[in-house]
């Protein structure tokens, strides 16, 4: 291929999508590099789906620039045939049965693996002959998951693919994704708000909040980057000083603050100052960041 993937599989610059006065995507700039699993995380209505629709050419940007495999995805067959987009609310023709979906999918995806699809159909116990209209929510989701995995598209988007899937089926999805990704590396963007469930699968994390990309970071760098300190108000305030505080709680004479990036020495100092140190999970960190990104941090008085 001719210098297609200069920076990354996806390159987005200053991307904005406005619906009336609402900026669903607001001046987003980021890139997605090849053969990594990305988490696109954020609250409901944060702009995840809109962003993926823009990236897959299903909607037009208000302004900004999108390059997928080095080209604009809009009406671009050479890009879109390498992309699989599994939507939360995929619609199928009224009289479609699951078998019809799996019959037509290979027409669109050149890497389609029928054996893998058959195995997944068995794993998810999907009734092939049932009309999709009559299926449970989880079974409809399973169709999408199977298409997304078996299509082995170089760039695969899963937009909240697990609606109605029970815990066992979700684990099956994560396990099959990981195993197949290991054998057939490709770029995967997984949009979800079940952060705890997927966080170990992710190599890179993009967090979107109110249309803005507020975190664009390696998952391993992010993990363990924040610490919650608990102690007497005086001890906490004394230690925190002028540090940036992500979150602050106070109860009686006690205070709890979440701060980023403590060195080993600072941890020892904090312990010595009588503070309890508690780790912050990726999910907690993102909750903290998406809760407080707009607000002024309150200072415990």
């Amino acid at each position: 291929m001719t210098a297609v993937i200069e920076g990354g599989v996806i390159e987005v610059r200053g991307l904005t999508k406005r619906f009336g006065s609402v900026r669903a995507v607001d001046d987003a700039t980021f890139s997605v590099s090849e053969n990594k699993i990305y988490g696109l995380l954020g609250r409901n209505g944060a702009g995840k789906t809109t962003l993926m629709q823009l990236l897959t050419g299903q909607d037009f940007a208000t302004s900004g620039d999108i390059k997928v495999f080095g080209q604009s995805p809009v009406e671009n067959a050479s890009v879109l045939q390498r992309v699989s987009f599994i939507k939360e609310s995929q619609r199928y023709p009224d009289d479609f049965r699951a078998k019809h979906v799996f019959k037509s999918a290979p027409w669109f995806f050149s890497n389609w693996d029928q054996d893998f699809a058959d195995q997944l159909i068995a794993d998810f116990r999907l009734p092939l002959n049932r009309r999709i209209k009559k299926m449970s929510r989880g079974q409809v989701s399973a169709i999408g998951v199977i298409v997304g995995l078996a299509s082995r598209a170089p760039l695969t988007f899963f937009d909240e693919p697990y609606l109605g899937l029970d815990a066992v089926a979700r684990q099956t999805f994560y396990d099959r994704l990981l195993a197949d990704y290991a054998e057939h590396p490709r770029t995967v963007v997984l949009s979800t708000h079940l952060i705890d469930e997927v966080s170990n699968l992710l190599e890179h994390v993009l967090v979107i909040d109110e249309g803005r990309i507020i975190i664009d970071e390696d998952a391993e760098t992010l993990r363990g980057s924040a610490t919650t300190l608990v102690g007497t108000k005086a001890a906490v305030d004394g230690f925190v000083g002028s540090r940036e505080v992500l979150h602050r709680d106070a109860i009686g004479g006690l205070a709890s603050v979440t701060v980023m990036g403590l060195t080993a020495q600072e941890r020892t100092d904090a312990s010595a100052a009588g503070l309890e140190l508690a780790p912050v999970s990726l999910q907690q960190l993102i909750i903290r960041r998406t809760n407080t990104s707009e607000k002024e941090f309150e200072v415990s008085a």
Partner: protein
Amino acid sequence: MDESRPIFVQLAEQIENDIISGTLAEETQVPSINEFAAFYRINPATALKGVTMLVDEGALYKKRGIGMFVAEGAQAQLKTKRRDKFAAEFVTPLLTEAAKLGITSEQLADMIRKEGSK
């Protein structure tokens, strides 16, 4: 895997534990990156990072085209490394907690002896 620390570090520690305990004997092959990833349900890039860390430390070595093996002397080397960290990770917190509860050093020593003789 706990959520609070980098997973590659936890994976490396897990492999170290298996080497120290002898579960992974010296000169035996360790699981592949993809096997580690599937078993611990982590991203293969993360698994690679953990294993690379042990290769850099000399605990594991690569046989081209075959896989990863536990190096000779890895067990002793890792024990030394863990002993160096033992005071900071276990003794200091123990003393801090004991001081908070008003337990003297003699009482603490007694408790350790008693526990040890169980």
